């Protein structure tokens, strides 16, 4: 039985179906979870998908992080369960304090939907185990607020810890230190602006994203085998 993936649906989320399709295509067992629930179903991985939760009104992720399900997500994370936030999901994780920093409007003040190249700067994580350090991946971005920022001391700390997992090779949005993807100190909560679920099929332009999703799936199948 494949890894069980819970994809949280907030009002205004819009990448939940794509995540569902791509995880299923990689042999996992995705299931949609409504934000109004207070408990997570029995899942190994929690995904906060892209979109415009609550219309991105006020600030991206500002309202979503108060959704009833978020306590359960935080608890899942506290117990070491993997959590992946993609695009809007990344923004929500930052607002919820599960990841450091915040995301501002792109430096160019334009929404950007395009293919970019990201470099794996830490391949020794549950999210990048199938890649090599220094390897570049072709994945699409699709956001207006991807310009990540944090206090200098926070940046120093997470760099020292190798928490910056993915960097743009050609920074499209002004993100500090070219940050495209991050993890928390414990290494089980990941957030990235690019959309790996959109890069799982050569027909659509690239299948590099599947390396990231597969890494995550593998990381838990090990655990679950151990758990028997």
């Amino acid at each position: 039985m494949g890894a069980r993936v819970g994809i949280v649906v907030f009002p205004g989320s819009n990448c939940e179906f794509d995540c569902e399709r791509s995880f299923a295509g990689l042999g996992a067992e995705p299931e949609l979870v409504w934000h109004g629930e207070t408990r997570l179903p029995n899942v190994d991985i929690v995904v906060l998908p892209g979109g415009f939760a609550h219309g991105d009104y006020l600030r991206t992720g500002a309202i979503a992080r108060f959704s009833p399900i978020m306590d359960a997500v935080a608890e899942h994370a506290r117990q070491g369960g993997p959590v992946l936030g993609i695009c809007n999901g990344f923004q929500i994780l930052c607002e919820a304090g599960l990841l450091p920093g915040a995301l501002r409007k792109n430096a160019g003040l334009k929404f950007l939907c395009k293919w970019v190249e990201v470099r794996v700067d830490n391949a020794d994580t549950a999210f990048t185990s199938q890649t090599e350090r220094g390897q570049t991946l072709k994945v699409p971005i699709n956001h207006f607020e991807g310009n990540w920022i944090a206090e200098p001391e926070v940046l120093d700390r997470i760099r020292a810890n190798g928490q910056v997992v993915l960097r743009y090779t050609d920074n499209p949005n002004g993100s500090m230190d070219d940050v495209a993807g991050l993890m928390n100190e414990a290494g089980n909560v990941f957030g990235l602006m690019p959309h790996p679920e959109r890069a799982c099929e050569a027909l659509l332009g690239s299948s590099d994203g599947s390396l990231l999703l597969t890494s995550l799936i593998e990381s838990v199948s090990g655990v679950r085998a151990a758990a028997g």
Partner: protein
Amino acid sequence: MDSAVYHELGLTDDEFEAIVARLGRDPSYTELAMFSVMWSEHCSYKSSRVHLKELPTEGPQVLVGPGEGAGIIEVAPGVAVAWKMESHNHPSFVEPFNGAATGVGGIVRDILSMGARPIALMDPLRFGELDSSKTAYLVDGVVHGISSYGNSIGVPTVGGEAVFEDCYAENPLVNVACLGFVEKLMHGRAEGPGNTVILIGSSTGRDGIGGASVLASAEFDETSAEKRPSVQVGDPFTEKLLIEACLELVRRDLLVGFQDLGAGGISCPTSEMASKAGTGMRVDISSVHRREPGMEPFEVMISESQERMLGVVDPTNVEAVLEVCTRWGLEARVIGEVTKSGRLEILDGGSVVADVPSAALAEEGPVYRRPSAPPKWIEELRAQPVGDDAPVDLGQALLKLLGSPNISSKRWIWEQYDHMIFLGTVQGPGGDAAVIRLPGTDVAVAITVDGPGRYCYLDPYEGARLAVAEAARNVACVGARPLAITNCLNFGNPEKPGVMWQFAEVIRGMSDACVALGTPVTGGNVSFYNETKGRAIYPTPVIGMLGVVPSPESSIGSTFANSGDAIFMLGVTRLGDFGGSEFAKTINGQVGGAPPQLDMDAEKKLLDFLFSAGSRLLTSAHDVSGGGLAVSLAESAIRGGIGFTVKLPGDEAHRVAFSESPSRAVVTCAPGRMKEVLDLADAKGVSVAELGSVGGDLLDFGPFQVSLAEATSAFEDGFERSLTATLEA
């Protein structure tokens, strides 16, 4: 009643008399307001109806033709799509960001009302020349509006047009087409007296009062400024909730009938759904959830507040429907019931504020056969030189064309649009047509939008045929078979015989072309009164062509792929085809003469060739349109990042390079497959010329060359350069 009252609402004396005759009494003010929106040009098609009747609308592939929210076309056994285009021209001129945004919202609800999930958008846009800061401001606002709304509701915008001509300076065109994937076919009918009527979505406010009659059915002038209170702010978040909630209602079979609220507000779906079903409706507007206190009954009835739908529900399902809406965070209110009376009875608490036959509003509006005659200027215009003088330097001419606003890459626009969501975008913006794989199927369709206004200005009949042919060619170039069209017909003031003539000629041309190609018209939209201070736009029919691709994997790209591939041109180049061409306009500053004449038989053979060859034989295909053969070759090279060598004849090279003869395409194949291409062309009766081969970093035409780098920077940066230049000027 004082005539000033109904004149102010845009009703004529005759129309008022007709209302009185139909009711047998003077209408109440609420009734009058309802008639004024429902009988407006925008809602009633009173000037266009007699002509639209001429269009071919039937075919085995057509499940639902014109007259409903959107046309429905069967693209594979048991797989159907909804396809429709709409205009939001005047609102976008008044307030570009919100005008364009609410334009997207409107067409998306049309698609939704058919029980289809909106899965792709296209945005044909037209503005004045890019050298004015006002135009730059409009472009920026419109694109930002479409981007922020379309991206937020999670529907990809996969293509469009951006055309710049002086005639649109004071009257930009913002058309939006939407493709839907039918989950369960729905109809806008209020069947079953006793059924409950539920209003779903945003609260009703004073915003957009009389939008249809005020903004979309009259010419523009200085006083339009005072009409600004009717500006609406789009709420993509609520629209997204509406999409998901309504699709759940549809899937769970909780709705009897269903329609969106757009122009005309509550008056529209109530009267139309009842009228279509031969029933009536009793509605109590005191239960309509409001955004503002103290609204008059007439305001509630005609407010065009966005993001609302009307559902007809079996009483036993009301609870379930309300539960779904609440879960999605949407307001939903029972506002009335279906009756046998055939009348639309509007109550405000205890008192009746309107009581009129539903059909009188919905179907018995005035129908005009307006006087039509060729405008005086047309002969003069046709007599003018076409502008085919040779340029000093062919290479420079090509670079100038590649960098011109109409031809240069629109990347700056489409990179602001999510064009990938749903994992269906096999080919997105940048090519001849978008190729979309339908969710959960292995079926792929191709869609494109084309509207050559300059050709139609010179000759509306021929221009319309060329529009349909180019659209068909664009879908054929990605390997699809053309199936059906939708359209958006943008014209000036129909009360002017010259404009009416242009309209009639365009309809005639469109009909002939659609009959010849077997692509029926499954719906569309007419936008009249595109005039400001008496100056009309070019007659601009935008054609939205839908085609079907054998399989998602089998589509063809328009980019040169492999060094060594052989390059062919299919079709015949006529050396005099410069009337209304990009070359004539951009290089010689001339718009005159006659447009190219379409040989429909040759066109059909070309389409047939492209479809039969497909990706099995071809490594790329790109139609030859604006800018001619040279631009077509250059675009494929630039998109592929690789040059080519071809041999064009030396004398009068500019005619071969830039003539815009229709029914042509540039295709490539692997060197080993050349004979097959020639044989197939022979078999299909398509004339074919072997031009040369792909490779190198030069665009080598023989008589002239430009470097791939130069051409790329002209094409890729041209648009943004002109735009930002004017924005900052």
